């Protein structure tokens, strides 16, 4: 009868206590992530450790941190749901970072039911996910107390539109008080209502001006007001070190944007690659 906790007690050299086995699995998560092959065959990757023996399975299922890295571009919706359940209440790292973005059916469920515990969100919105763009539009609206990093790239013909909370000042800290990095690629963003993130150190908003010559959400808003609000928000972020704005400001704003919008050096990079003035 094998020992449940230490099944290899008969061969003590091979028995690892749960904390060490969890450490091994932690590396396995990074080295061997689940994926779909080019032929759309499912490869469970590191998850196979839970099929080795009862002890390994118990350790793997008991270590919730192992299940928090969820690539929503891989495996099936059932697997995503399973992993969300197994991760318990641990902060989530959600990515669709696979090189070939596909349908991300589980994203609405993640945003609706688990957004409060997302720590990192790295999503590529592909043409198959046009419907998801609208859901992403609300991404900065609900409270995200654990959110630290956001990276959203839109490969879709209809750009994801980021709607920021209609709030500035100290109150915005309540939405995402830990947020320190935002990277948006080909996403429309409301500069007019850009919130203040007190711990933000990195902000990159990049537009492919050839694809999207009119990226603004609020084209009817007065240009000067838009500029003032945006600069005012930037000035309210004392930790901001890197600001990258490419193709997302019209010339008149970019030329006016002061280089000393930050209170604190170093401002490592301020790109003013301009959107042609229309």
């Amino acid at each position, binding site marked *: 009868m094998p020992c449940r906790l230490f099944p290899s007690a008969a061969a003590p050299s091979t028995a690892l206590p749960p904390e060490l086995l969890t450490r091994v699995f932690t590396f396995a998560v990074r080295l061997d992530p689940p994926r779909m092959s080019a032929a759309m065959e499912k490869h469970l990757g590191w998850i196979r*450790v839970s099929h080795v023996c009862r002890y390994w399975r118990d350790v793997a299922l008991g270590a919730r941190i192992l299940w928090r890295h969820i690539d929503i571009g891989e495996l099936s919706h059932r697997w995503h749901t399973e992993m969300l359940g197994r991760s318990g209440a641990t902060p989530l790292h959600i990515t669709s970072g696979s090189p070939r973005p596909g349908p991300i059916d589980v994203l609405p469920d993640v945003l609706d039911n688990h957004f409060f515990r997302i720590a990192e969100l790295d999503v590529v919105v592909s043409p198959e996910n046009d419907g998801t763009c609208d859901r992403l539009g609300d991404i900065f609206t609900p409270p995200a107390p654990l959110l630290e990093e956001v990276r959203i790239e839109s490969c879709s013909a209809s750009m994801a539109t980021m709607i920021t909370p209609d709030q500035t000042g100290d109150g915005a800290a309540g939405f995402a008080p830990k947020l320190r990095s935002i990277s948006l690629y080909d996403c429309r963003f409301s500069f007019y209502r850009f919130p203040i993130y007190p711990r933000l150190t990195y902000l990159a908003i990049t537009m492919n001006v050839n694809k999207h010559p009119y990226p603004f959400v609020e084209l009817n808003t007065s240009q000067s007001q838009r500029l003032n609000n945006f600069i005012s928000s930037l000035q309210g972020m004392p930790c901001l070190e890197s600001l990258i704005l490419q193709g997302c400001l019209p010339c008149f704003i970019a030329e006016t944007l002061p280089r000393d919008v930050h209170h604190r050096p170093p401002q490592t990079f301020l790109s003013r690659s301009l959107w042609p003035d229309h």
Partner: protein
Amino acid sequence: MPTIVSVDDSTVPGEGSSRLLLLVSSDNKHIVVEEDIMSRSRFISKQVEGFEATSQRHAILLPFSSFVLNKVIEYCSHYRGYYLLEDDPDAAPPGRSPVREWDQEFLDVDRNMLLRIIKAAHYLEIKSLVGSCARAIADMIRGKTTEEMREILGVENDFTPEEEHSPSSKCTG
């Protein structure tokens, strides 16, 4: 709680600038090592603090063989005086690094030895060595089938045939 035995000063010369420790392995080999070398071990550091509190020096008995202990000492000697980012391997940047390359060569040992080293490092609370060993083991099972993992690490399949083919025993999806 470690077992300790009293030793006299002639056994452990520790009055100089470089203090020495006496480590005793499970096969009763006495190994003298400089305290600085073993400072990467939180376990040893705590033992030394205890010695200073009582003004008595002791040999430290360790529950693993001299072969494993010498391997751990070799690791600690190599990184003597260095701060290792791998003390928190999760924070270490991915990719190649001189530390990782040396560790890979150092840990190019058979399975049983690797498992003994990680357990010794865990006992001695040497985080960086635990992390390197764990990574090495994860590398061994990367991309392997379940059966191959069992063979590589000598693990017995204790699932019943029914469990093995049951969705609840494995995973759904």
